[in-house]
């Protein structure tokens, strides 16, 4: 049983457009985000990732990876192909390393259930439900 309370998962393409979003918490506990909200958050985080990689104190760094909200955390993972995975969680149990591992597993699930689906086009929004089920199962394990 997971000790972390995940809130949402968001995936953007190379260009910053939203290709996937999933709410991971029951609707009663946190305010529901609409698709427009996810779109705005996605494109903002995409720009922030690019800006922070330029102003980072470490030269050649990838940019923003973790955002600490005190009682919550957001972990960002950018892939070699330029996609960005954003996982948000709340509560004291949201550890950075746990979320990083969770994101790696989610990326592996993406490589299976979305990339290998012949009916998904690269950089287009992913609509399959199977990937969503896998993400929920992965979050349960972490």
């Amino acid at each position: 049983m997971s000790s972390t309370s995940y809130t949402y998962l968001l995936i953007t393409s190379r260009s910053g457009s939203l290709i996937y979003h999933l709410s991971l918490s029951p609707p009663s506990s946190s305010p529901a985000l609409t698709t427009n909200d996810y779109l705005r958050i996605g494109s903002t985080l995409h720009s922030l990732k690019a800006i922070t990689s330029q102003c980072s104190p470490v030269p050649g760094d990838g940019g923003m990876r973790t955002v600490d909200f005190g009682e919550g955390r957001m972990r960002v993972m950018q892939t070699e192909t330029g996609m960005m995975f954003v996982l948000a969680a709340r509560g004291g149990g949201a550890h950075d390393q746990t979320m990083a591992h969770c994101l790696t597993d989610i990326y592996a699930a993406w490589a299976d259930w979305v990339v290998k689906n012949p009916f998904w086009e690269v950089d287009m929004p992913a609509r399959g439900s199977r990937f969503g089920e896998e993400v929920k199962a992965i979050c349960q394990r972490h």
Partner: protein
Amino acid sequence: MLQAGTGRSTSSHPLDRPLSRRPGEVSLAAFTLLFSELVQLHQVRSSSVPEFEAALCDAGRQVGSRALQVHWIREGKKTRETRILGILQFLSSTIWPGLFNKKADSLERGVSSKSEYMIHDANPLPTVFCEVPRSLGGMNPNAFVSGIIQGVLETAGFGCDVTAHRADEGGSGTRTVFLVNFHDDVVERDEMLEG
């Protein structure tokens, strides 16, 4: 084969070596990415769902034809199978594991018709990652597997038509039934051999 003067045997020609009993394994990821490209190619070329499924079925038939020959020789069989049940059992318990690493879930005979048989598979391997969008309606990429079955049976001398049907209610799950409808002359021949 000994070569004079060297005292050592030369290695046999590749064509003289026996066909390996252990088939090579292919990574599922590699296959499904290739299959994904095949599906996309036919999606672009076809102008209707039946045409799309027929194209995948044709691709499968070529696989089935070769699969039958390879597995038949590997089993060391020297004579042809002449009975419907015999060839279907070979398909579900030898060819299916050879291709998909598992036996077909079950094989049944149609209740209403003498020419109908059903092969069940809870999650056919080639289409395990396929999720058909609603815009394509009832399109079933398992037409490829239907083609494999048809290729096997036709090459063995049992003319038939094979179609794939979703067995789950709502049509969203992966349980599939492959309906094999043998041609009349095949059914007649099988009845004669029984008698």
